[in-house]
């Protein structure tokens, strides 16, 4: 049990907490807040990034989850990652923040799915961004114990 579980979960700020990983798999030189999201039947690591306007999902994950837009018209936008502009579609998907203590939180959020050229692969991680996800939940980080608290507003 983490130090502030009682205060934050029993106190009503959060409904669950999770021990987050400090590194995205294969990126061992940079410290991140990496939580696990349950979606499409799998546990998927995602970086919590308040600087990202949208949640970002690898197109292969989107395809596996049946999120690839099929309509003629999709709401589209451009996301800049490391100076590179990616065109993509905004889609709606439900994911669950996986808790270690307390309860999981299932959220229907907006994800940016990049449109890639034929043969191109998405070279970036998955992200939980501000506008489409984080802005509508309560969350707190205890960096001393690597705990991410979350709950509905």
């Amino acid at each position, binding site marked *: 049990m983490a130090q502030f579980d009682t205060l934050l979960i029993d106190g009503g700020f959060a409904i669950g907490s999770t021990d987050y990983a400090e590194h995205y798999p294969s990126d061992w030189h940079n410290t991140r807040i990496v939580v696990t999201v349950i979606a499409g039947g799998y546990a998927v690591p995602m970086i919590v990034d308040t600087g990202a306007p949208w949640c970002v999902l690898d197109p292969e994950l989107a395809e596996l989850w049946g999120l690839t837009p099929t*309509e003629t*018209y999709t709401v589209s936008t451009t996301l800049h990652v490391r100076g590179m502009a990616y065109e993509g579609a905004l889609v709606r998907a439900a994911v669950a923040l996986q808790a270690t203590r307390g309860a999981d939180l299932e959220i229907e959020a*907006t994800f940016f799915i990049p449109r890639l050229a034929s043969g191109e692969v998405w070279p970036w991680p998955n992200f939980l961004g501000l506008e489409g996800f984080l802005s*509508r939940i309560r969350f707190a980080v205890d960096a001393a114990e690597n705990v991410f608290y979350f709950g509905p507003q």
Partner: protein
Amino acid sequence: MPVPSASSTGEGQAAPGRPVRRRVEQQRAQRARAQPQQERARESERQQRSPVREDSALGGGRGIRVLTSTDVGSVRGGVYRPCPVLEGAVVPWGRIDNRPPPTGRLMPNARVGLLFEGDNPVPRQSLSVEDAPQPSELRTLEQAAAQTDRQAFALLATAIDWSTHGATALTRAIDLALALDMVSLARELAHQGNRIFPEDRRLQQAMAVLAPPVVRGTRPAQSLHLTASQRWLKEHASQYTGQWVAVRGGTLLGSAATLQELHERIGIEGQAASTIVVKVLPCASANL
């Protein structure tokens, strides 16, 4: 979705008054001289039965001229497509939304606009156009977006009466707002769009996608034992750079070049919430 480009005639608003009318009549006369005699006779008969007239009042008071054979009915919406044949003269005409009654026949006439055939005058209720030359306020909006002038864009977008433009224009405004990272404005425009054009699928989609996140529910935390898998990834992931890997309980279930291949490879037994699925990125890529 881009707003269709303006026609060659420009604004889409006719300059009212005699000079344009005279030009229309002159052009009609020129074409009549070029027509075979039989066709001229038919045309004359048709004109006598339902003479073409212009009615600027039907243009919604915006200086738009409408040529029609009857002034029965009224016009809603403001913008009309210029008649393509009458070059140099901006003569609007529109597509009829409502079905013509069985006793008469509404016929879009490339030369004069809308023409009613048949003995009985046909009530014309509302006109709408699919494509229209871009009004100046929409052009100004595009310019503000192109110049990344968010303040001007926001002021314009909130001031425009979108009910006088088509759903396409509003959808374009939403796309531009998103391109400017003005998500709240895009959301507001989508809401407006749904009110004004409730049947438009694109606006329905925009509203759904731009809606704030919604909490669907909660469930008790599951013991997924992910720590062992996270430790495995830390120790072994670098051996699978560029590959998708699936790890459960600290054990590799499989790896593949694509997620679909991996999904098929690990089968139904591997598909579980306790299975971590991740693409091992090159070190430089994971660093943002």
